[in-house]
């Protein structure tokens, strides 16, 4: 029989319940108050008292209110029909909710139970299958989604029957499996997975190596992220975290994009679901919304559900990865999640760690990033979760617990810088501090050599060195004055400015410049390398400044022109002519 209980204490959203039976840590329960059933999660047990965090407002809750324990941890419901959906942090379908305002205790079905799916079997009777083996597939928004054996299946089972090709709702039986103990298991298209457990239903997790194209030059060219890689974007407010995240989620070469809006502005979510249905995926030509799922726990939604929201999003990502898809998961922002943990820990009167965050923050962050990755599934197919999180450091100071702990685990670091943002050099990713560890992977180097060219990484590293040198010279000029350094120094400095203006800076709001396909990036990299490698002769630094400004202007116009169009080629010719003319 299910455990029941009664409320004995309330402090904000932490409620103490006296239970009449066994209670598990992280178990979900429902408390009835004022006619509403509120969902809550057990976070501490002391004797017969269970401390639960209620996912919604506890206003008006009284001692004696009834609670019912479910015996299950927090779970998501998985099946076809989730693409293009807007969920809250607990996977309620926001579009199914009534009214303009969110009403507490209103929970909606994440799936559409009436919708029929065209099922095509992949397994046949007599096959032996393991947990999450592919039994069949359905098509949703032009993507083939697999229908899998239950993940909780132990050992191998035998397919007893499987449905013939045809249209079924997600609740209809599409297969019957006979487990090792001889018991028959009815399989539908729907599964439930716990959100806080990492799913390890794959054979191997190698080091990732495949470049994930994002169309953002400062990422792809300078510090590339890979399929199954991890990255994070810290930055003070107003430096363009969200614009950069949206650019990546619009342009990245992924099958599924999951956006976890975690404790951020509601209008940013509105932007996604207003624009994505109109925008086109540059890789497939279909509408962006078709491949996107939003998990929104905006900053005014209950804090306790904020932690759940990132786990919900990650579990959705794991589900699609098990189908052999490339998933991109974006979380904006992981700092808000950490703050939610802090609020909870504070109310529980736990001893605080640095900046009053809970002591186990580093473990929580590293476990979460660890769930991303490129995997070989049990059937040999590959799938990936690329995870990019933003971090909102307090006061823009990167020496704070969330940034420091994230830096330990994420392999790409895109540091957004106030100074660059102030000077409108967008994206404001600092080219010197930022890094991608993948550039050092021999697997990545081999992949790039094969798919792009053997000297790509060498050229990229050359640009990086030039940027660093340019920065050093800029500092010297600031100290010694324009006349205090040789004219050559000015040339070196301006070469680094060419890299900055032409490769790094990109106008996210210009139709052409916003997305740079890899081929065009190669072209730009070659041209800029050519400009930088040439030797020039100038008499005065004024000449240098003037000449390079004209050159940069031409390059900018080239970046604004359609690739390989007449205008583009013309600008390129003019640039080459300028370079040839000034060469010594």
């Amino acid at each position, binding site marked *: 029989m299910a455990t029941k209980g009664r409320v004995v*204490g309330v402090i904000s959203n932490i409620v103490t319940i006296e239970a009449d039976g066994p209670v598990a840590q992280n178990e979900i329960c429902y408390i009835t108050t004022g006619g509403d059933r509120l969902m809550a999660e057990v976070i501490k047990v002391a004797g017969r008292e269970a401390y639960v965090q209620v996912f919604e407002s506890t206003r008006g809750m009284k001692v004696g209110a009834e609670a019912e324990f479910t015996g299950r941890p927090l779970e998501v419901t998985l099946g076809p029909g989730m693409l293009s959906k807007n969920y809250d942090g607990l996977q309620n379908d926001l579009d199914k909710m009534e009214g303009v305002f969110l009403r*507490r205790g209103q929970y909606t079905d994440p799936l559409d139970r009436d919708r029929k799916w065209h099922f095509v079997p992949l397994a046949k009777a007599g096959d032996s299958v393991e947990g999450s083996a592919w039994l069949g597939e359905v098509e949703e928004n032009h993507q083939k989604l697999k229908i899998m054996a239950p993940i909780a299946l132990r050992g191998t089972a035998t397919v007893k029957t499987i449905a013939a090709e045809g249209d079924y709702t997600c609740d209809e039986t599409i297969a019957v499996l006979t487990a090792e103990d001889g018991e028959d298991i009815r399989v539908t298209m729907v599964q439930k997975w716990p959100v806080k457990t990492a799913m390890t239903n794959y054979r191997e997790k190698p080091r990732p190596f495949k470049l994930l194209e994002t169309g953002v030059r400062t990422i792809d060219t300078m510090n590339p992220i890979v399929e199954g890689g991890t990255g994070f974007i810290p930055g003070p407010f*107003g430096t363009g975290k969200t614009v950069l995240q949206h650019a990546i989620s619009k342009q990245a070469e992924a099958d599924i994009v999951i956006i976890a809006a975690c404790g951020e502005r509601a209008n940013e979510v509105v932007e996604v679901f207003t624009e994505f249905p109109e925008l086109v995926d540059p890789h497939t030509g279909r509408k962006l919304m078709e491949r996107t799922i939003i998990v929104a726990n*905006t900053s005014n939604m209950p*804090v306790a559900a904020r932690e759940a929201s990132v786990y919900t999003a990650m579990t959705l990502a794991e589900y699609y990865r098990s189908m052999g898809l490339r998933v991109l998961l974006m979380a904006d922002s992981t700092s808000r999640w950490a703050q939610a943990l802090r609020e909870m820990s504070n109310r529980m009167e736990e001893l605080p760690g640095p900046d009053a965050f809970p002591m186990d923050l580093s473990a929580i962050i590293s476990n979460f990033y660890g769930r991303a990755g490129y995997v070989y599934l049990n059937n040999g197919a590959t799938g990936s979760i690329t995870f990019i999180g933003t971090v909102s450091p307090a006061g*823009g100071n990167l020496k704070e617990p969330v940034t420091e702990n994230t830096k330990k685990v994420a392999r790409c670091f895109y540091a957004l810088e106030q100074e660059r943002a102030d000077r409108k050099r967008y994206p404001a990713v600092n080219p010197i501090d930022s890094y991608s560890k993948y550039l050092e992977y021999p697997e990545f180097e081999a992949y790039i050599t094969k798919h792009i060219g053997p000297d790509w990484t060498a050229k990229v590293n050359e640009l990086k060195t030039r940027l660093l040198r340019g920065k050093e010279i800029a500092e010297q000029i600031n100290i010694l004055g324009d006349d205090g350094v040789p004219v050559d120094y000015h040339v070196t400095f301006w070469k680094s400015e060419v890299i900055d203006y032409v490769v790094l800076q990109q106008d996210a*709001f210009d139709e052409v410049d916003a997305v740079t396909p890899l081929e065009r990036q190669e072209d730009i990299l070659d041209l800029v390398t050519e400009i930088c490698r040439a030797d020039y002769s100038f008499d005065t630094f004024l000449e240098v400044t003037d000449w390079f400004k004209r050159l940069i202007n031409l390059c900018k*116009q080239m970046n604004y022109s359609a690739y390989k169009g007449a205008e583009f080629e013309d600008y390129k010719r003019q640039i080459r002519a300028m370079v040839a003319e000034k060469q010594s």
Partner: protein
Amino acid sequence: MATKAFQRVYTKISQITKATCTLKATGVGADELAVVDGRLAQVVKIARDEVTLQVFEGTGGIPTDAEVVFTGKAPTLKVGDQLAGRFFDAYGHPIDGGPDPEGKEVEIGGPSVNPVRRKQPSELIATGIAGIDLNNTLVSGQKIPFFADPDQPFNQVMAMVALRARADKIVLGGMGMTNDDYLYFKNVFSNAGALDRIVSFVNTTEDPAVERLLVPDMALTAAEYFAVEKNEKVLVLLTDMTSYADSLAIVSNRMDQIPSKDSMPGSLYSDLAKIYEKAAQFPSGGSITIIAVTTLSGGDITHAVPDNTGYITEGQLFLRRDSDIGKVVVDPFRSLSRLKQLVAGKKTRRDHPQLMNAAVRLYADAANAKTKLENGFDLTDYDNRALAFAKDYADKLLAIDVNLDTTEMLDVTWALLAKYFKPEEVNIKKELVDEYWTK
């Protein structure tokens, strides 16, 4: 508040701290309002039969045998058209000598808007101030604070913006406002003949500090009535949110919570977000736009209050005194309107986005030149031109006394570029230069 016959009166307080008192009571709900010795208090903790109340005015002078009555409800406001033109205190009681307003009683701090029911903000709010309209265009449904030192004229700028913004209703939430500023707003609004469009909830420096925690929720509850029920465009002015945060810190300190950065409670982000996120464009046409003030200490935006605010709001307007022209300007570097791209170049002329960025970039070049000058280096011809441009730009566009329409602002900018620079120095798309460059 009169005691009703059926209400149970408690008279045995077991513990009193500076801000709270604890007593044994049953049948009490979380967040419920109570009256302790005639003062309003709110339930903050229930542990079996022990209830802890936070007394807004403070507990000074409360005896252990004081009368405690529970009201059975969270703080409420009676909303209706009668709110217009009225001035209230933090509890929603009239302070203008008028009668109590009649209307539907609703709990303040109500639920959030379902994000999928929001509409994308798309209506430009023109203020005439180029530092705002040109560089940091405001949009209805936006939330944006002024970041300003206490000596800057933020209340004047805010009143000016409010009157020019053509809102159907203006709701003023004053927190820790001096009596002089309260009278200033009252005068400005009545001189402009706008009093019937104003609803004010004011907590002055003479009132208890903790009371002001109710002000934003009161103001926004009134705003939601007009925006949702009446489909009106409502502008909410909140000044000053730093005083609000200071009160949060006082309460959390008195409740023995562990402070995080700058002695602020760990929940500061959520507390502020709950307020600012009430700004919304509703599907039926009404909207709530929030313009707030966050006072800074010596321009420090890394302090927890402006820092958390910056992460919540859709930009910030940074006021600064410009010593070159002797006027207060809207700083183009530190100011930002995150929603400007929804209207700039769409509701305004198409050259707007690129032109605005180019001018700010050139203004940044001037800042570099100024550093060079201060360090005693020779300036180049370009540096000198940039400096001259910056001075003109600050005077003709950034200063808060500018009043132009947006197209005029663009024309002035092009004229300034042409006066000081060559087309190839401004990095603007060629087709725009061809069309708009002032010959």
